[in-house]
């Protein structure tokens, strides 16, 4: 029955789509370009920057940040924000560190699950508070950090007290791919599939795109919001275990300030602050960019302060670019005839 339709030339419909894929590509290729320039520049200044060790450090750092950014992207797509991820990471790192210190025989997989469960519980709490309690997102950031300080006090867990197998997990590779990177890739792949291919994922986009319409469409907005926070919390908990395995040294301040980097990674990677659009893949690319920037600054011996300033500037730049692009696209879409 669509014979006539199929025969209709598609010339007019191509336009908005073309605009969309261009925008998409512009963002990704912008990040890639920035990466190339940054790496090239830093490498000419300091050849150690491209050593195997340095590249491995960047990849491990990216893996942890990307796991967090994937969770953050999922929350931001629903037009929310999870500012507790740094605190959850710290809490999970310390909790799992203590567990392993006191029970040397615990296998790595159990440590990972423990981090996921603890983080997930924090995420649910967070989601319930945000959805029903009208608690500002900052509240849980400080509350959880406070718990961590109370518990850890001045203690520090050192690498020599942790099981060998756990530290190996944090620093070794399987088939040339570090375990942490592998985990990051799995998280990214699963999240991509769920967000693109499952009802639950599409509902998250719908909720962020128009919360009122989502409610009217019969989407269970509260349940989904809490689920998104659960995932973000669980991933932050997982990231805490990865953090502990990689660094081996954990105190009450672990992960402080991470939330800014995570939000920046997501926003720079094209996740809209006002919800409804963006991909976890973009957020991960953003995580890579931020990690490389941090590493370059360290290699170039530039003050830590600048790193914060650059992250802040990047967020503003990305939001500004989003605004600009969004209004351009809206205009372009309005201009075109929608009929095929």
């Amino acid at each position, binding site marked *: *029955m*669509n014979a006539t*339709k199929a025969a*209709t030339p598609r010339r*007019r*419909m191509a336009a*908005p*789509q073309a605009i*969309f894929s261009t925008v998409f590509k512009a963002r990704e290729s912008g990040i890639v370009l920035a990466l190339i320039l940054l790496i090239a520049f830093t490498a000419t200044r300091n050849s150690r920057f491209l050593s195997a060790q340095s590249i491995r450090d960047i990849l491990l750092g990216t893996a942890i940040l990307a796991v967090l950014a994937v969770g953050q992207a999922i929350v931001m797509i629903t037009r929310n924000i999870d500012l507790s991820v740094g605190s959850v990471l710290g809490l999970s790192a310390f909790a799992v560190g203590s567990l392993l210190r006191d029970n040397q025989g615990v296998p790595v997989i159990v440590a990972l699950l423990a981090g996921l469960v603890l983080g997930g519980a924090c995420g649910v709490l967070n989601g319930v508070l945000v959805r029903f309690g009208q608690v500002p997102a900052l509240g849980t950031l400080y509350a959880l950090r406070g718990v961590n300080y109370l518990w850890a006090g001045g203690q520090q867990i050192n690498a020599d007290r942790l099981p060998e197998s756990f530290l190996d997990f944090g620093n070794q590779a399987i088939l040339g791919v570090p375990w942490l990177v592998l985990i990051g890739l799995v998280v990214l792949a699963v999240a991509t*599939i769920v967000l693109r*291919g*499952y*009802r639950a994922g*599409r*509902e998250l*986009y*719908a909720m*962020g*795109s*128009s919360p*009122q*319409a*989502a*409610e*009217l*469409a*019969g*989407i*269970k907005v509260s349940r989904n919001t809490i689920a998104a926070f659960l995932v973000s919390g669980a991933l932050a908990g997982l990231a805490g275990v990865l953090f502990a395995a990689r660094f081996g040294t954990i105190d009450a301040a672990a992960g402080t300030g991470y939330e800014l980097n995570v939000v920046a990674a997501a926003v720079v990677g094209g996740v*809209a602050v006002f919800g*409804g*659009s963006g991909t976890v893949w973009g957020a991960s690319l953003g995580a890579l960019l931020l990690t490389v920037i941090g590493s370059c600054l360290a290699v170039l011996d530039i003050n830590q302060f600048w790193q914060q300033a650059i992250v802040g500037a990047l967020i503003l730049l990305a939001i500004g670019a989003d605004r600009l692009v969004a209004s351009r*696209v*809206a*205009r*372009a*879409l*309005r*201009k*075109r*005839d*929608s*009929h*095929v």
Partner: protein
Amino acid sequence: MMRQNPGPAPLLEVRDVSKSFGAVAAVAGVSFPLYAGEAHALVGENGAGKSTIVKMLAGVHRPDTGTLVLDGAPVDFGSPAEARAAGIAVIYQEPTLFPDLSVAENIVMGRHPRGRLGMIDRAAVRAEAEGLFSRLGVRIDVERPARGLSIADQQIVEIAKALGADARLLIMDEPTAALSLVEVERLFTVAGTLREEGAAIMFISHRFEEITALCQRVTVMRDGRHVSTDPIDDLTVEEMVRRMVGRDLDALFPKQEVEPGAVVLEVEGLARQGVFRDISFSVRAGEIVALAGLVGSGRSEVVQAVFGVDERDAGSVRLKGKRLRAGSPRAAMAAGMALVPEDRRQQGLLMDLSIERNVNLPRSGALARLGFLFGGGERREARRWTERLRTRYGRLSDAVGTLSGGNQQKVVLAKWLATDPRVLIVDEPTRGIDVGTKAEVHRLMSALAAEGVAVLMVSSELPEVLGMADRVLIMREGRIVAEIPRAEATEDSVMFAAMGQEAAA
């Protein structure tokens, strides 16, 4: 409880329901039945409580008192999801699309067809959307995002969304407001088929010809209360209107004859690639010029470009001989131009702000020139205009978002009328506005023209065009194809020009 003369039991019965918002009793003790296989019209003035009833049936609001009875058993919908599960599909008065998602995905949201491993079957999503559009006889690209769709297309997508739900009760709250005749006919054919298949339909509209064409029964509401429910054949349109308004209405189009003055608005060679071209016309002081044509012929786009909301590729716009800067609504407003846009929700109102704030928005620059805004002046001005348009509200300080759809339209009109313009451009002046107020809007436009304002009006309603316009410009496919003076403008001449060869064929 046995009835003496049992007809078929209603599919759904509204029994003595009431709903108040604060001090406003939106619905008070309303009862009526909805039968399977029947289309039921709900009519009433703006703010009568029609949409509030819809929202109770849809699970958005819970009735304060009274019950909804579905298949003979009372139901209590706690959320839209529950009403959907019970087989109720709703086209809401306000568009409820997801701008970031594709048109196809908007249509299937919440009930995506699934395939392997429970994953969404993209091909099936696409096919379903295209199938619905072909039933409605429209062609909309289903892969494009919903953002930027014209109002008419948004409404079509809403209709497709509701049709796709395969509902036992289909509720349509002013679904036709932005549609052209052809599209309305298609919708009615599809609705008629659904009805014959045994679905119940509830239909809300301010256009009586649509109500008589589609519906078998009609319920009249006034001020939140039930007035009557009758078979449509037992009721004349005049009687319906009398019951709605509670009084007899005066003549519908009181157009004053005005001797046109000097040319005020001059548009020359206006063009935008792929949308319209070669647009030249002028409007004199005291004249009402209508821009007619089918939906999608480029009328709204032209007036948006004249006002400067949209860019233009070529051409000039002069107001009293002074050339206006392209793409600057600010410049147009400063020169004395006002545009009441088609998309009032998106472009016309700030939903969270109060009524008085919204009415005074375009002028707050002028009012604030003394250094601060006078609350009293603002209120007086807002009251004057909203009263002239018979706007129904609780307090002027209420948020505009809480008004009924038609009353929101009135606030947008009030807002631009209050700017005291020299050129007034109105896109669909009476869309969504009830019969009683329609005449008032026309009287106001006519009075403004008599005061020397140049009025340019885009309208899809032929009676309005024929009744109000001194001259009719007819657009087809982005060009002005005919100009018909008042004396020669008839339904046939205007439609013929608007349809072009199609009508000849």
